[in-house]
């Protein structure tokens, strides 16, 4: 019988996995990720790939918003920077994907860091508006800098593996491995980030920036670093979108996308890496689920056909509100509560 998990040494406190159950679960997840693509058809692979990309982006945004406390409405635009950089390198210079994708991420880190500079002076809602400016400016540049980005026209991305000019045809199955590999790397990097000095500095800034500065944290440097790190990951997601879909248009990277990513981390759990993953899964699967229910309902009750789309939209909003009311700390907290309930049974509380 347990009444909680207690750490008796620093080593245990720093451990990533505290209980045997966590190790087993991790193993199960790895096995599932390895087997899944062989069992799933293309539809589920599409969903899995969408989730993988959303996870990368959401983890990135959570580092900035959840861990460092800097709200950002520019995710859509940062995705665009990654996507356009990767796409243009591939199209203009026939560069292979293993160069274009990291390059896209680096470029986004640079741009993200730049737009992070105002965060020294701006906080909360004011910073939100400043990042909104990033969203608007970047999308404007992308659509109007014709000579570089091709303007509003869609870019047709080429996928190369080497410099030999041979285009490779990828399908959902092959991209699954690329996207999941990147997602796993990003998650591991993020989890470990918060066991290092910069990671702890981010959290200190979030909790009380003045106190952090008093303790010797260079607030400006770490805020910009948080923007750059976060943007790096978002840029990775953007670059992956470009190569996965092979088409880049700015209409994919609107303000709605920024808000969707914010919703993901809020619903999943701010300041939680696993929360970012849950949120990404939830926000990708919920519309798909609602569409499927709508489809079955529509064929079952024909006269409902015309109003179902509106019900779907409403349900999407209601489900999110309900989730937040019951657990403002997100799905990550719900999951912890469920675990605690069983572990501490019968003496929870």
């Amino acid at each position, binding site marked *: 019988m347990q009444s909680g998990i207690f750490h008796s040494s620093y080593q245990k406190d720093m451990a990533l996995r505290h209980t045997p159950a966590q190790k087993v679960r991790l193993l199960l997840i790895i096995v599932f990720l390895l087997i899944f693509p062989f069992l799933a058809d293309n*539809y589920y692979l*599409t969903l899995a790939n969408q989730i993988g990309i959303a996870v990368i982006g959401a983890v990135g945004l959570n580092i900035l918003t959840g861990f460092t406390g800097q709200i950002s409405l520019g995710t859509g635009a940062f995705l665009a920077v990654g996507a356009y950089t990767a796409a243009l390198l591939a199209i203009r210079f026939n560069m292979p994907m293993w160069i274009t994708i990291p390059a896209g991420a680096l470029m986004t880190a640079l741009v993200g860091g730049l737009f992070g500079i105002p965060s020294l002076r701006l906080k909360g809602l004011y910073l939100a508006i400043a990042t909104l400016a990033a969203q608007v400016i970047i999308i404007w540049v992308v659509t109007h800098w014709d000579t570089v980005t091709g303007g509003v026209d869609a870019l047709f991305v080429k996928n190369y593996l080497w410099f030999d000019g041979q285009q490779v045809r990828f399908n959902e199955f092959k991209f699954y491995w690329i996207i999941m590999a990147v997602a796993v790397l990003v998650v591991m990097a993020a989890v470990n980030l918060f066991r290092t000095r910069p990671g702890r500095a981010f959290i200190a800034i979030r909790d009380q920036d003045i106190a952090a500065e008093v303790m010797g944290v260079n607030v400006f440097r770490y805020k910009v670093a948080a923007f750059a790190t976060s943007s790096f990951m978002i840029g990775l997601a953007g670059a992956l979108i470009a190569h996965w*879909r092979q*088409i880049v248009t700015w209409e*994919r990277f609107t303000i709605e996308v920024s808000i969707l990513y914010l919703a993901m981390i809020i619903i999943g759990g701010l300041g939680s890496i696993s929360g970012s993953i849950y949120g990404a899964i939830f926000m990708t699967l919920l519309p798909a689920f609602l569409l499927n229910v709508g*489809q079955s309902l529509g064929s079952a009750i024909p006269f409902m056909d015309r109003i179902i*789309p509106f019900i779907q939209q409403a349900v999407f909003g209601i489900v999110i509100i309900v989730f937040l009311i019951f657990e403002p700390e997100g799905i990550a907290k*719900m999951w912890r509560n469920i675990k605690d309930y069983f572990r501490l049974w019968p003496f929870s509380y």
Partner: protein
Amino acid sequence: MKKRTVLAIGLALLAALLLAACGGGGEAEPIKIGAIFDLTGPTSDVGTPYAEGEKGYVEWINENGGINGRKVELIAQDYAYKVDQAEQLYSQYVNQDKVIAFLGWGTGDTEALRAKIAADEIPFMSASYSINLADINEAPYNFLTGTSYSDQMVIALQWIKDDAASKGVDAKVVVFHHDSPFGESPVPDGQAYADANGIAYTNLAMPRGATDLTPQLTQAQEFGANYIVIQNVSSPAALLAKNAKSLGMDVQIICLNWCADELFVKLAEDASEGVLGVMPFSPDLTVPGAQDAAKFLESKGEKLEDYGLHYVQGWTTVKVMLEGVKRTLDAKKELTGANLRTSLEGIQNFDTGDVTAPLNFSPTDHRGNDAAKLYQVQNGQWVAVSDYIHSRIEAKAHK
């Protein structure tokens, strides 16, 4: 307690998702066509009648014996103009429901799926008529049932050239366009035509969600515009017409297809009077090609006038796609996307009953036609003022 309830709901949702997703398979008999509609998104005002038209045609053809005795099943959903959802639905319909063709809607989804449909060999028709989609190399499975925006622009400029000559003035054209790929799509081709024909030509983007376009119109005045071409949807176009009227500008406004409709007349009220429209789909609902739709709706106790020309547009788009299906079946070929594409490419001089100019597809050109009639708003009705005008521009001239 509460948390357990949430957990239960969550698990139920998950189970239902799996069930719903697995429920797809079965019956190989019907001809399956996938489609996405915008019923709740930003373009739902015109997306809804278009979607109803698509559904209507499928219902109508099934009531009339289907295609060679086979029923048509339209598997469709609202995607609210969201690219991600369009992708999810597309992937689901193609991979699980095994649809052989796909009907899209806007520029966003059509562009985003362009590479996918080529790889999956799924013939695709949407209501986006960008000339980029006629590029056989980059979009081998896209077909345009409507006259491309570039063709529409050149048709408008041809009319302007003649009109200015007859009035003895120099034509000065300002193109007002939506700030998007959709809006900018015909601008370069228009520029090329204007340069070749000595027409002064410039373009201005209409900011999204603007409530007053007077600043942009003032710029047009400074340019000395006597003709304005609008490539935008009805509501902002109506705003522009009203603003121009209240500024007392002496200009001839010409709408390309997405602003030339009944909604424009309704919204612009008396400012719409005298406005011209390049309309690839006839706003005259009494043309022979619209009669099946009219009778079908009448049998349901509804009226075609309530839906308008976008209904006929959706109706005709499915009709063309299914004509390809019929030809594939008639040729006793297996109904695959690749064979359907070949059949569609064999469609020559296809008569849509005066809804559009006759359609021609070929292995080198997926533009249905390059012609449209000009209509003018007279007493609140669109009235034809020309016969079909051909643009005669090459599909790839824009690059």
